[in-house]
């Protein structure tokens, strides 16, 4: 038996440019994966970064060989990598944990593949692999800095697309010669890069348009979202379900715990409406979720005129789910005793902690399932989840929530009757001035349904109060809500939310105060909601019989629980991000001018809408005039310089520096005579000039015009003169 070794089908790729581009793109993609925290072990990272470029160089050198032994060796190495992967993956407990061995395996596949890429098709596979790697890195990346990898990769991927679009040598006829004759007029310096720049610009524009018009649909098929510890956890000593917030400052002399840059006093046993101060703009955590939500932490039900406290602060342990990876929040706690009769929206959230937080888990309303890297979670009656460890930087946990999404008509139909057991949520301070209740009654006059009353109060607060972090502390002895509503009408979110809760309670509607974080800003590139320390927030939950607790935020509003179709697109966050950027970089006078211009444009638009027939007429007339003007301009350009004349003008231009400047009145022949009379001029120059001049004269005056070949020769002669004169 004879073993026959056949070379792989297709010609080897000889283009060094394509190989370099592919090697660089793959290396960038490997670098992007390696740069993600804990993505791959360090030895694998170093080896892949060194071996992949080496592999492409080796493959180029051996592209014409059969490489049988190499293929065998690569197969063995691949099997070894697979064995290693299977060994590693045996010990993981979730899909998320499998990503590290999977990334390692894929890097090895990429590296081994790099050693045997003889053909263009093999290089295309390499580019596909690099796309997968860059996608993996993108899915792991939490920050915008990933753009440092993505943009160069995109550039090289574009270069690869461009280079590989050129047909291979065997797909076109082998030319005997290719001659390029440059145009007469000198090209601008940017001419060579203009097409590439135009292509890049168009691609960027197309990408941007696609990106902003790409919907963000809900739909997570990931059954086990990520959760992990970051090093050794900070345990809460003597944990019994109480809140521990080490970031809070010590009590001031008057017993009030104020805001500190990293500590929100709302994450504790009490919410003191006398507290003042500012939180920092440091990033508190990132949230990966399909939609925005208020990240809820604690609930307070008792108000004494200055402090919100919790009546029943007992907590119960959360029991693990069947798979042992998560814990389940009992439905009566999670959904409230109304059981969300009006419907809900399932939101899967993963929190990546950036700044140490208290031992309270943040989550969208009605958390049902929690994936947390520590046992011993407890929950209070209002659904506030406490952990036995502090949320340290780097900790990751996930929560599945059923966010209430009851439509307004259903809320309006809710019975206006307080269920038994909810009377604590109607509690009011004993000395609450009656004018608070009077104001609430005045605002909601004529509205019977709870929903209408809630909306009326919320609207009134939004219209008549102002969010202001500069307000001084209230005078001693006053009711904080009364003082806010009738004296200042300026204050923190705590004052605004408390006012709503108290006014609704005066109307007999059960309410409670909730603290947590606002949704933050969605980074349009990473897709994460970036929540700052200063996003710590307070809002209100209102109970609807048969439905449950529904959040209301009189300060900034509650994100839609079930976003509309328009809200599914990234255009909003993108333009918001652009707006924030502009707000930060544009000087105030310019912003004022832009605002003024915007108002003028708006007013003009409104006027145009009112007088649209006139506007249409004007636009049509303008369009016709523009078209005619363009045609006229084209016609004026349509009579270009004849090629013979162009050659002559180029000749005159070339000879100018030698002192032979053509007088305006001299004919071409006279100019030629002048050249011929200059003994110092090269005979080749005069001969070439003679050809150019004669051709030009024939083109201009002779009945039989010079042929195309003669014109070409005249052009060449003109170019030769430029060359000869320049060399001299």
């Amino acid at each position, binding site marked *: 038996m004879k073993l026959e070794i056949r070379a792989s089908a297709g010609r080897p790729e000889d283009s060094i440019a394509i190989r370099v581009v592919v090697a660089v793109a793959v290396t960038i993609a490997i670098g992007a994966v390696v740069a993600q925290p804990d993505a791959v072990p360090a030895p694998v990272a170093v080896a892949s970064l060194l071996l992949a470029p080496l592999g492409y160089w080796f493959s180029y050198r051996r592209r014409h060989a059969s490489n049988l032994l190499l293929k065998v060796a690569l197969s063995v190495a691949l099997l070894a990598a697979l064995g290693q992967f299977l060994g590693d993956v045996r010990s993981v407990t979730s899909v998320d944990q499998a990503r590290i061995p999977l990334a390692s395996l894929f890097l090895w596949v990429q590296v081994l593949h790099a050693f045997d890429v003889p053909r263009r098709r093999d290089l295309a596979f390499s580019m596909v692999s690099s796309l997968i790697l860059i996608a993996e890195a993108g899915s792991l990346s939490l920050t915008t800095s990933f753009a440092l990898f993505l943009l160069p990769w995109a550039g090289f991927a574009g270069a690869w697309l461009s280079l590989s679009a050129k047909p291979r040598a065997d797909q*076109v006829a*082998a030319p005997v010669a290719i001659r390029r004759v440059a145009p007469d007029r000198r090209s601008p310096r940017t001419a060579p890069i203009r097409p590439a720049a135009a*292509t890049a610009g168009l691609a960027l524009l197309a990408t941007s348009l*696609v*990106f902003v018009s790409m919907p963000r649909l809900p739909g997570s098929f990931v059954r086990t979202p990520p959760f992990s510890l970051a090093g050794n956890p900070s345990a809460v000593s003597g944990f019994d379900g109480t809140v521990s917030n080490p970031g809070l400052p010590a009590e001031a002399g008057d017993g009030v715990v104020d805001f500190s840059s990293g500590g929100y006093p709302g994450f504790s046993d009490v919410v003191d409406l006398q507290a003042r101060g500012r939180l920092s703009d440091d990033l508190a955590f990132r949230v990966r979720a399909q939609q925005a939500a208020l990240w809820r932490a604690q609930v307070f039900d008792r108000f004494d005129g200055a402090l919100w406290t919790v009546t029943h602060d007992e907590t119960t342990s959360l029991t693990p789910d069947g798979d042992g990876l998560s814990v389940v929040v009992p439905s009566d706690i999670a959904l409230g005793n109304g059981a969300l009769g009006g419907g809900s929206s399932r939101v899967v959230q993963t929190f990546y902690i950036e700044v140490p937080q208290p031992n309270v888990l943040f989550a969208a309303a009605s958390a049902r399932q929690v994936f947390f890297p520590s046992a011993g979670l407890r929950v209070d009656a209002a659904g506030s989840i406490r952990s036995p460890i502090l949320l340290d930087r780097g900790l990751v946990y996930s929560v599945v929530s059923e966010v209430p999404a009851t439509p307004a008509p259903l809320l309006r139909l809710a019975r206006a009757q307080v269920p038994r057991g909810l009377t604590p949520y109607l509690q009011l301070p004993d000395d609450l001035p009656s004018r608070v209740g009077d104001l609430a009654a005045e605002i909601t006059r004529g509205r019977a349904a709870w929903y209408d009353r809630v909306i009326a109060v919320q609207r009134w607060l939004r219209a008549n109060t102002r969010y202001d972090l500069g307000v001084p502390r209230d005078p001693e002895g006053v009711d904080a809500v009364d003082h806010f509503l009738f004296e200042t009408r300026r204050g923190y979110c705590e004052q605004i939310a408390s006012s709503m809760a108290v006014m609704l309670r005066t109307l007999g509607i059960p309410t409670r105060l909730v603290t947590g974080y606002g949704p933050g800003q969605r980074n349009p590139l990473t*897709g994460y909601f970036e929540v700052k320390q200063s996003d710590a927030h307070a809002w209100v939950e209102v109970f609807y019989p048969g439905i449950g607790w529904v959040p209301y935020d009189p300060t900034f509003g509650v994100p839609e629980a079930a976003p509309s179709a328009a809200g599914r697109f990234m255009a909003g966050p993108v333009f918001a991000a652009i707006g924030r950027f502009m707000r930060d970089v544009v000087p105030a006078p310019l912003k004022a001018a832009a605002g003024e211009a915007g108002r003028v444009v708006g007013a003009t638009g409104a006027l145009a809408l009112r007088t649209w027939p006139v506007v249409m007429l004007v636009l049509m007339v303008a369009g016709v005039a523009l078209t005619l003007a363009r045609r006229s301009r084209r016609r004026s350009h349509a009579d270009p310089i004849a090629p013979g004349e162009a050659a002559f003008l180029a000749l005159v231009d070339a000879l100018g520096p030698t002192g032979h400047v053509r007088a305006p009145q001299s004919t071409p022949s006279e100019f030629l005579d002048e050249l011929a009379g200059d003994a110092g001029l090269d005979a080749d120059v005069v001969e070439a000039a003679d050809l150019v001049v004669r051709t030009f004269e024939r083109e201009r005056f002779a009945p039989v015009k010079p042929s195309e070949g003669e014109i070409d020769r005249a052009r060449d002669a003109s170019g030769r003169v430029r060359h000869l004169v320049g060399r001299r």
Partner: protein
Amino acid sequence: MRLRKRAIGLLIGAGVLFFLGTNVQAGWLFVLAAMLLGAVITGFVLPARSTRGIDVTRRAPDRVHQGEEPLVDVIVRGGRRGTRRGLILHDRFLEAANLWVGTVRPGERVEVTTRRVARRRGTHAPTSVSVRSAAPFGVAERRRRVEVGGESTLVLPAVEPLGPLPFVQPVSTSEIAMHTAPRRGQGPEYLGVREYRPGDSMRHVHWASTARTGVMMVRELEQEQTRKLAIVIDASRDDEAAGEAFTPLDRVCSAAASIALAALAQGHGARLVTGSSDDGELDVLARASDDELLEHLALLRPVARARPFAAVVADVAPALRGTETVVLVFPTWPDNDAEHLAPAVQAVAESIGTVVAIPVMLDRGAARGVSSEERLAGLVQRLRAAGASVHAWRLGASLSAALGEAPLEAVSR
């Protein structure tokens, strides 16, 4: 506009990334998906721009022989504005070829010179070219047909220098000099009409001219001494489907051209007789120069409703009076078998001194258990018996070798 496989790959990739991005809510995957779609959109829009406003001209020799590889220049000019990129020209002139032009800057002229094999006889008019571009990303290709300026090229049959023909008697130098112009005589070739002179035969009176002019007119005929060689060609059919460089008719024309030019070079007159349609007329080319002869053969195409070659040969003898040698050139089509050809050849051999048969052998494989060689052997045997000498021209062999070797002997089966 045609989408390429690459576009499909990018669209699928974008779809997969969008699906994954939706499921893990990873924003960068949406960015990547948008990039892939952006590349598709860009690659779809730009090629149309690259193929617009292109001017193409072509330079090629006006005459070449079949099988030669002349240089053909294709000159591409871009428009005044905008760079054309990734241009490929598909040019079917003489031989189909894809020409890589690449980038053409505004006002630039690019001349691409390639060698083309002149594969088919006949006139090659300046056909249009297909200009295509898939630049910059190769995801979609735009094709546009562009009319091309330039002159046509006539592809003549391939000619093989043969030297003295073994089957034609040499002619003396003085005879060559005398025969440069036709001489009046009693031959079969018609020269014109003139007034009657005493002594003219009444058989030569041209009554139509006499009636028209009122003066006795007679036909003037050429002296038949130059009629040494006639080449009878089977142009009844051809077969281009075989995919060979030369079709059977190309080879027949090549043989006829080579023999005719060799005969002319030796001072012999050479006439070309081709098959006829069913009206019974023969197509005879006489007293032609080299160029006229080649041009005639270059433009020769299969005759519509052709009579069988054997029938043509059977009828050719009266038209070739005075001819010393008749060369029959024919492909070994199934109907050119010994059964049909031998009687016709015998009829010609009885009236003309030398009959040479040149079967242009086709590789048709075995039929009914009889191989090509065996069929040829049978044909040779019968034609020899009919009085012809036979020089078979096999595929891949040179004509001179076929003519130079001894006439084939019959192979007994």
